[in-house]
């Protein structure tokens, strides 16, 4: 038992080590001026998608439910935190404000996770997938018509541009389809450190998810995935543990949304569509369902790939699509798996035979 625990802990530290190593490499490259502008611009979004993929893996990999609405939770986290940042822009210095904004984004997304999870988790399989997709689209649609502003009389909320009137000196924050602008400008003094903050948040996400997964609750979550009826019969409250995984995942997606929103000068709701949810799901599946390190690495490689292929202009998404299909076939097709294990045996042939004997 003891050695097993040590193995898990060691495994966790290897994952943190990879993140820190990557961070150090990137910082060294950046300090010596070897990092192109394009790559520098990619760093924070990479952290965003890594957090999103790791948190989605909690739902898809560990509780075994297919969610296609992850972008919806990112959207909620992004908008709630950006609103908070704008409202408290004059009241708080930027560091505590950003920490609070992260908490606001996580809590609001987590609340949405509970609200959506309670009805949705009664459904199974593909039905659950379509309902989460529907929730993502509803959230996107509603935020698209929401106008929020502050003036001397307090906070104003409207659903049409015409009905959105503020007293003189008021500040329009959310402008419907135009979204929220100027969020990153509120954090001029710490803008340069966003990559560092992003890496810390990635580590925090990994810490939360890895510890949850290896805890008593985590084992309960996995048991509901492996056999729902068997789990119920040994007294595990299936709904409770599925909801726990769903909510934690939503809250962490909210954190990813916060980072996303604050890194942009212009936040528009249209980016949080089902394509984004699917993109995150692709990272999870390609990285390995239930493998957190895999999600992280897949997110980094697959997010960077289309950007690095910019030289191929119009062909880049085509190449991306082909790479995706080929990788899926190579990774998952039983025929390809057999071929791979035969190859592995061939290379390690002698050694394997000795072990078998």
């Amino acid at each position, binding site marked *: 038992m003891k050695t097993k625990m040590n193995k898990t802990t060691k495994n966790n530290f290897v994952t943190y080590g990879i993140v820190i190593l990557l961070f150090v490499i990137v910082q060294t490259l950046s300090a010596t001026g070897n990092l192109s502008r394009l790559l520098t611009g990619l760093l924070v979004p990479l952290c965003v998608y890594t957090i999103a993929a790791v948190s989605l893996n909690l739902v898809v990999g560990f509780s075994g439910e297919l969610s296609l609405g992850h972008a919806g939770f990112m959207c909620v986290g992004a908008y709630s935190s950006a609103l908070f940042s704008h409202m408290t822009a004059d009241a708080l210095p930027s560091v505590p404000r950003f920490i609070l904004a992260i908490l606001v984004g996580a809590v609001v997304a987590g609340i949405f996770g509970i609200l959506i999870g309670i009805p949705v988790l009664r459904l199974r399989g*593909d*039905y659950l997938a379509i309902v989460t997709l*529907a929730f993502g689209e509803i959230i996107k649609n509603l935020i698209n018509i929401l106008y929020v502003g502050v003036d001397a009389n307090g906070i104003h909320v409207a659903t049409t541009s015409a009905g959105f009137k503020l007293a003189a000196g008021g500040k329009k924050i959310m402008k419907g389809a135009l979204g929220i602008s100027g969020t990153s400008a509120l954090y001029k003094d710490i803008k340069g450190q966003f990559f560092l903050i992003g890496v810390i948040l990635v580590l925090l996400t990994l810490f939360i998810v890895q510890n949850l997964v290896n805890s008593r609750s985590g084992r309960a979550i996995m048991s509901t995935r492996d056999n729902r009826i068997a789990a119920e019969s040994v007294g595990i409250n299936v709904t409770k543990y599925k909801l726990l995984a769903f909510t934690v995942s939503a809250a962490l997606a909210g954190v990813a949304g916060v980072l996303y929103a604050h890194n942009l000068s212009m936040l528009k709701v249209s980016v949080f569509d089902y394509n984004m949810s699917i993109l995150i*799901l692709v990272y999870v599946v390609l990285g390995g369902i239930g493998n957190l390190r895999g999600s992280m690495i897949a997110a980094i490689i697959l997010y960077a790939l289309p950007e690095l292929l910019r030289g191929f202009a119009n*062909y880049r998404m085509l190449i991306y699509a*082909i790479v995706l*299909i080929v990788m*899926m076939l190579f990774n998952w097709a*039983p025929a390809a798996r057999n071929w791979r294990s035969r190859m592995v045996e061939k290379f390690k042939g002698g050694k394997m035979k000795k072990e078998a004997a």
Partner: protein
Amino acid sequence: MSFISYLKDGISLGSIYAIIALGYTMVYGIAKMLNFAHGDVIMVGAFVILTAITKAGLPPAAAILISVVFCTVLGIVIEKIAYRPLRKASSNLAVLITAIGVSYLLQNLALLIFGADAKSFVTVIDVPSVSLFGGQLVIKGITIVTIVVSVIIMVALTFFVQKTKPGRAMQAVSEDRDAAQLMGVNVNATISLTFAIGSGLAAIAGLLLCSAYPTLTPYTGAMPGIKAFVAAVFGGIGSIPGAMVGGILLGVIEIFGKAYISSQVADAIVFAVLIIVLLVKPTGLFGKNIQEKV
């Protein structure tokens, strides 16, 4: 009178969703996979018709035929190359992601060949409008054609699945694939046939969709594809009458939502209705309730 006018618009749009949803639901029922690339086959079908008419100068009937054949072959090829190797994979998600990859592939191929700018679709179906109640209600020719075509497809498909040998093979495969194989059903051929029919229907859906809303981009198929998927789930995925009813209801709700509430939240209303239906009846309107056994 505006109510009836909206209703007929809704039924017309819903009929298109229904035809797309039939493809989704058949593939799901038999191959147990969500074919995310289905919406993009619609777009391919529409581009084939447009090219055949404007570039090759073919008559509309020949163009439609070419498009249906092209999409049918495309469906079979996609299934064979991308989905069949993964049929026995340990996770259902693998084939879902591959379908997404195929969807990206079709969109980006179309983007490379035809460009990103919206093309206006040619008039293929030329049927005069019908004027009722002394001109108070005008029904466009395309609306009539859409509804008639979808009813014909529905009846023909039901007949095919219930009465013919390959149709019954499909039922057998959807019920229990291994048992069907033991009974001498060629599972691979049956699944290929399903994809062929579904993709052929997608070509017809593409024609109707682009005749009713005549702009065409590489992304035209994506949203109707998702809506049709919703319609299929709404009616109970795997059920042919369910796809038809789900599609039409979805179209009517969407048009009413746009007309009476707000055009910006019409999609949200559609999805909200879906969620309510699923919460009350978790397998959709016509879905079979399968008891889980240990």
